[in-house]
């Protein structure tokens, strides 16, 4: 399993290089990327830090037998794991942030004053758990968007472009999906598919494409009648090429904005799934769910909830701010300069 995630990291790095070169080549994308950077420097940096943490948490390898001890032998450990050494960097149970004694009982800690955000019920470091949640959150958002956007584009654009029976079919599917309570459908799907990262992402994707599909269909309906599409037909361009060169590029800004917005919605909805006990292992949702049990105690155990919530809030806020800026920037029609 850890080989797959290593390969994905390599592919992502290659993709980033390719994207960087494309952006540097094309004036339109270069200027817009710069504009985004100027407008939302902090948000972009925040997302960058999250991505970096997720990548560090995705590169894993198994220690050779000679170096491994009983706790780590045979297990792939990521760079984050290696930094925190969670096997030994832990306590017996709760401890407050930077405390020297345990929360209940007052026994001296194994690592006094070292747990920046304290430890949880099982004595795990909260900073470590929060950082581990980053990868899960980005996986949910990213992987699910990879399911949602192609499905929505395929159905939305073909329904809008060809209309008729295809449109009827797609619209029927959308109406049916929209009329089933999505949470129930999600639970049912996860029961069928089983628990696991990919399964949960597919389930979220299958239930989540309707909204963007509707947008893509509406926009295609409008673009289909656009004069430049008529002009392309008059030049002898085929339907496939019209969709590829004239419809899809005009949907690009919607895709980017939808990606950003779906991303945050998905990260948030995972919290609800965790609350229902079908979330992903190690997610912020699970941390918040566990913290829920501690809120009624006095003195209150707040750091568990705080770690997950602040991390979640910062990511969602940063992505939303970027999405908002992108909406203004990406659409070339909002630019007003004459050559």
């Amino acid at each position: 399993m850890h080989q797959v995630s290593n390969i994905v990291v390599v592919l992502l790095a290659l993709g980033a290089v390719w994207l960087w070169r494309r952006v540097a080549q094309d004036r339109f994308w270069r200027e817009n990327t710069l504009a985004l950077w100027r407008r939302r420097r902090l948000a972009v940096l925040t997302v960058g830090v999250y991505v970096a943490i997720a990548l560090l948490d995705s590169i894993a390898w198994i220690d050779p037998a000679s170096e491994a001890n009983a706790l780590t032998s045979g297990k792939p450990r990521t760079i984050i794991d290696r930094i925190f050494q969670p096997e030994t960097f832990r306590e017996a149970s709760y401890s407050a942030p930077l405390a020297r004694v345990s929360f209940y009982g007052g026994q001296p800690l194994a690592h006094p004053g070292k747990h920046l955000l304290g430890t949880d019920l099982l004595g795990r470091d909260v900073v470590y758990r929060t950082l581990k949640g980053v990868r899960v959150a980005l996986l949910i958002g990213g992987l699910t968007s990879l399911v949602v956007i192609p499905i929505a584009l395929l159905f939305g654009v073909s329904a809008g472009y060809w209309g008729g029976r295809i449109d009827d079919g797609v619209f029927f599917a959308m109406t049916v999906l929209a009329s089933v309570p999505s949470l129930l459908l999600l639970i049912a799907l996860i029961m069928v598919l089983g628990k696991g990262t990919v399964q949960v992402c597919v389930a979220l994707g299958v239930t989540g494409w309707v909204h963007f599909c509707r947008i893509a269909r509406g926009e295609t309906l409008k673009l289909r009648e656009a004069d430049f599409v008529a002009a392309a037909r008059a030049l002898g361009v085929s339907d496939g090429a019209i969709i590829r060169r004239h419809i899809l590029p005009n949907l690009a800004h919607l895709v980017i904005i939808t990606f950003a917005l779906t991303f945050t919605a998905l990260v948030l909805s995972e919290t609800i799934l965790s609350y229902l006990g079908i979330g992903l292992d190690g997610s912020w949702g699970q941390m918040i769910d566990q913290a829920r049990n501690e809120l009624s105690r006095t003195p209150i155990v707040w750091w568990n909830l705080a770690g997950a919530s602040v991390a979640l809030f910062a990511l969602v806020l940063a992505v939303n701010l970027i999405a908002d800026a992108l909406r203004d920037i990406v659409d070339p029609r909002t630019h007003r300069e004459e050559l």
Partner: protein
Amino acid sequence: MSAAALLAVEGLSISFPGAAAGERMRVVDRVSLSIAPGETLALVGESGCGKSMSALAVMRLVPKPGRIEAGSRIAFEGRDLLSLPVPEMRALRGARIGMIFQEPMTSLNPVVTAGEQVREAIELHAPLSRGDARKRVLELFAQVGIPDPATRFDAYPHQLSGGLKQRVMIAMAMAMRPRLLIADEPTTALDATIRAQILELLRNLSASTGTAVLLITHDFGVVNEVADRVAVMYAGGIVETGTRHELLSRPRHPYTQGLLRSIPRPEARGGRLAEIAGAVPRPGHWPPGCRFHPRCPHAFQPCPVEEPQPTGVSETQAASCHLVAREVGS
């Protein structure tokens, strides 16, 4: 109709579904016209008379649910366009027949640079390398009078003025040196000074490349500047054809006469503008007989019942009017 015609349209009818189920309503009814190689034919008429539909029919781009009726014939370079397989028709569009549209503001894809769009048009029909295609685009830009072609190549449509956009559209339509250029109201959306420049460009291009032009317009000023021959359309049919000089100086059909009288003239300033009484009948509500008779000041007996046939007035001029037929006959 001469055998050497580049484009010969005969009995073209286009219909749309009517209000009742199964009913078809004609918007173009048995239109015939022909264009010789290198000639500029202006198709004149009011909005909704079917002139744009006729032009789209030549490209076989009549929007659904519209339909070209059986019995129509469109021959281009001797080939029957209506029976051509779709891929061949597509190969013809853009390569042998170019088209430019009324709205330059919206006829270019807003997210693709101007040069890239023209290059696509070239690469669609000619096996050129990207570099060669780019060179050809720059040539074309220079040819259609776009200053500083290299900068404009990388400009997005919103960075260009209306006149420049229309020049880009013309470059795109002329990219493959088509034999026929269909220009659907190419200057309507432009202001007066730009209009004159664009018309001059069209005239020069047509003269230098030998491209025939089917110019659709409602503006006799445009007709006067570029047309060799003129066809006047009313309510889906052609009522009069002739050379520019004949039609502008000796119009025979009462509708053409009415149109010409209703052009504002500087010397008639302050006076009341002449008009044609009544309104254009809607498609599907065309009166029987001559479709113009309810508005015609000269209508007499056969007009409301019998449809007039084209009557030759000279070698080149013909009008579909009972009055003209009687005058010529007597």
